[in-house]
C-alpha cells in the first residue's frame, strides 16, 4: 500500500477517508437541499415577475435556514390509525438509497467514494429501491388519499424507470463500461457524449423529471390533487426528509449522472494541471442542469396521470428501444465511426420535437371531425 496523501500512514488514512466521504456527502445533501430550495423559490419568483424571499438575511439567503428550524420545531402529528413501524420506516427507505448514490459519483479525478465496476447499474438499483419506500408510506398512513397517491406515484416511478435505464444502456453501448470514472474518461476534450447521443440525453432528462417527481410530472405533490398524496399524514421533519432532503438530493444525483454520462463530468480546461479544479467544473455542470429543472418547473403545466403513462409506454419506450437498436447496428456496421449514430440520434430528437406534436395535432383534428360528423 503506497503512502497515503499528505504522508499520513495508510492505516489511519483508510477509515479517515471513509469518514470524510460520509461527512462530505451528508454535508452536500443537507446544504444542497437548503441551497436548492432557496434557488427554486428565487428562480420561480424571477420567472413569475415577483421578488421571492427577501426578508430573512441579505437577498433572503437565510430563508431556508429559518424554514428548516421551523420544520424541526413542528409537532410530529401522527394519526392513530397509521401503521407505526412502516410509517416510521418509510422516510429511511427513501432517504438511504439517495445518500448511498453519492458513493460512485466522480467529482474529480481520484475523487470518487468508491469506483465500483458496476457503477451505473448500482445507481439504477438504488433508484428502484426508493419506490418501495413510497408504496409503504402511502399504505402505512391508512388514509385513502395517501394510498391512491402512493400507488399512483409508485406507478409513475416504475414506469419511467424503463426509459431511464434504456437511455443509460445506449451510452454504455458507445462507452463499453459501467464504471462512472471510465465513462467520464472516455469523453476526451470537447467531444462529449451529448453530441453523439442527444436523444438518449433528452429521454433521460424527461425520465429523470418523472423519477424525481418534478413538474411536469409532480402529480404526487400537487396541492390541488389528492391533498398531498402519500405525504398527507406526514408532518414536521418527517415531511421535510421526504420532500426537501430526498427530492433535492435525488435531483442532485440525477443531474450528476447527466453530467457524467453526456457532458464529460469533471472535464474542463485546466483539469490535467490541477485535478481539484474538476470539482468546480463538475459542480458547475450539475447546477446548470438543476437550474434547467427549476426552469422547467416554472414554465410547464402539470400532466395528468394517464397522459404521463401514455407518454412513457407509447412514446418514450418505443423510441428508446429504436435508439438502442439503431445505435447497436450502426456501431457494428461502422466500427470506430460515431457519425452515423449522431445523425440517427439527432433525427430522433427532431422526431420527438417536431413530428410528434404534428402527429398529435392530426389525430386531434380527425377525432374532432369524427365527433362533429357523428353529432350532426
Amino acid at each position, binding site marked *: 500500500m503506497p503512502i497515503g496523501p499528505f504522508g499520513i500512514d495508510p492505516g489511519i488514512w483508510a477509515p479517515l477517508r471513509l469518514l470524510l466521504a460520509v461527512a462530505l456527502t451528508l454535508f452536500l445533501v443537507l446544504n444542497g437541499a437548503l441551497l436548492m430550495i432557496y434557488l427554486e423559490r428565487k428562480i420561480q419568483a424571477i420567472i413569475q415577475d415577483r421578488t421571492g424571499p427577501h426578508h430573512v438575511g441579505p437577498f433572503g439567503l437565510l430563508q431556508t435556514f429559518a424554514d428548516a428550524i421551523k420544520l424541526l420545531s413542528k409537532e410530529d402529528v401522527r394519526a392513530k390509525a397509521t401503521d407505526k413501524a412502516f410509517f416510521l420506516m418509510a422516510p*429511511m427507505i427513501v432517504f438511504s438509497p439517495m445518500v448511498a448514490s453519492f458513493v460512485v459519483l466522480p467529482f474529480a479525478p481520484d475523487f470518487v467514494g468508491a469506483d465500483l465496476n458496476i457503477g451505473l447499474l448500482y445507481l439504477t438499483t438504488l433508484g*428502484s429501491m426508493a419506490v418501495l419506500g413510497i408504496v409503504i408510506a402511502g399504505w402505512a398512513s391508512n388514509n385513502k388519499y395517501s394510498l391512491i397517491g402512493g400507488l399512483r406515484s409508485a406507478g409513475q416511478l416504475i414506469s419511467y424507470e424503463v426509459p431511464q435505464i434504456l437511455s443509460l444502456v445506449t451510452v454504455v453501448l458507445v462507452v463499453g463500461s459501467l464504471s462512472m470514472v471510465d465513462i467520464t474518461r472516455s469523453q476526451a476534450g470537447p467531444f462529449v457524449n451529448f453530441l453523439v447521443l442527444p436523444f438518449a440525453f433528452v429521454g433521460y432528462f424527461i425520465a429523470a423529471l418523472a423519477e424525481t417527481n418534478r413538474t411536469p410530472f409532480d402529480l404526487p405533490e400537487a396541492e390541488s390533487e389528492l391533498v398531498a398524496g402519500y405525504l398527507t399524514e406526514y408532518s414536521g421533519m418527517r415531511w421535510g426528509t421526504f420532500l426537501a432532503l430526498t427530492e433535492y438530493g435525488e435531483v442532485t444525483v440525477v443531474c450528476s449522472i447527466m453530467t457524467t454520462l453526456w457532458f464529460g463530468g469533471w472535464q474542463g480546461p485546466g483539469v490535467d494541471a490541477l485535478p481539484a479544479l474538476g470539482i468546480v467544473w463538475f459542480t458547475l455542470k450539475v447546477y446548470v442542469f438543476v437550474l434547467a429543472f427549476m426552469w422547467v418547473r416554472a414554465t410547464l403545466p402539470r400532466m395528468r396521470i394517464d397522459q404521463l403513462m401514455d407518454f412513457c409506454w407509447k412514446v418514450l419506450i418505443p423510441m428508446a428501444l429504436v435508439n438502442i437498436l439503431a445505435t447497436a447496428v450502426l456501431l*457494428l456496421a461502422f466500427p470506430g465511426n460515431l457519425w452515423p449514430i449522431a445523425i440517427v440520434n439527432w433525427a430522433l430528437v427532431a422526431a420527438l420535437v417536431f413530428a410528434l406534436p404534428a402527429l398529435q395535432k392530426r389525430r386531434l383534428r380527425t377525432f374532432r371531425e369524427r365527433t362533429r360528423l357523428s353529432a350532426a
Partner: protein
Amino acid sequence: MPDYNLSYFYVFAFFVAAAIFITLLLGLARLIAPRKVTVEKARTYESGEEPVGQAWSRYPTHFYVFALLFVVFDVEVIFLFPWAVLFRTLGWYGLVEMVIFIAILVVGLYYAWRKKALNWY
C-alpha cells in the same frame, strides 16, 4: 482495479450513515418540537370531513398491469446491461440474439397496447 471489499464497505457505511443521520435529525425534532396529542389531531385526514370506512376497499386493477409490465421490462433491461458492456466482443451474433429478445417483448407491449391495457382506466 479498485479494491472490491473496500468499495462495498463504503456502500454499506453510507447506508448506515444515512440511517443514523435520519435518526439523529428526527431525534432532534423530537427534542425541540411540542407533543400535545389530542383526539382531533389523531384522526385521519380527509379534507375536513369525517373519514368513512377502511382505507382498503376494492381498487382498480390497472396498477397491477403496469407493475407487471415493469417487471417484464426490468428483466429485459437486466439482460441489456451485460450485452451493452460486452457489445463489441459479441459482435453480430450477440446483436441478433438481443434483437430477437427485444422483439419478443415488444410484441408483448404491442399486445398490451391493442388490448387497451395501457390505458390508465
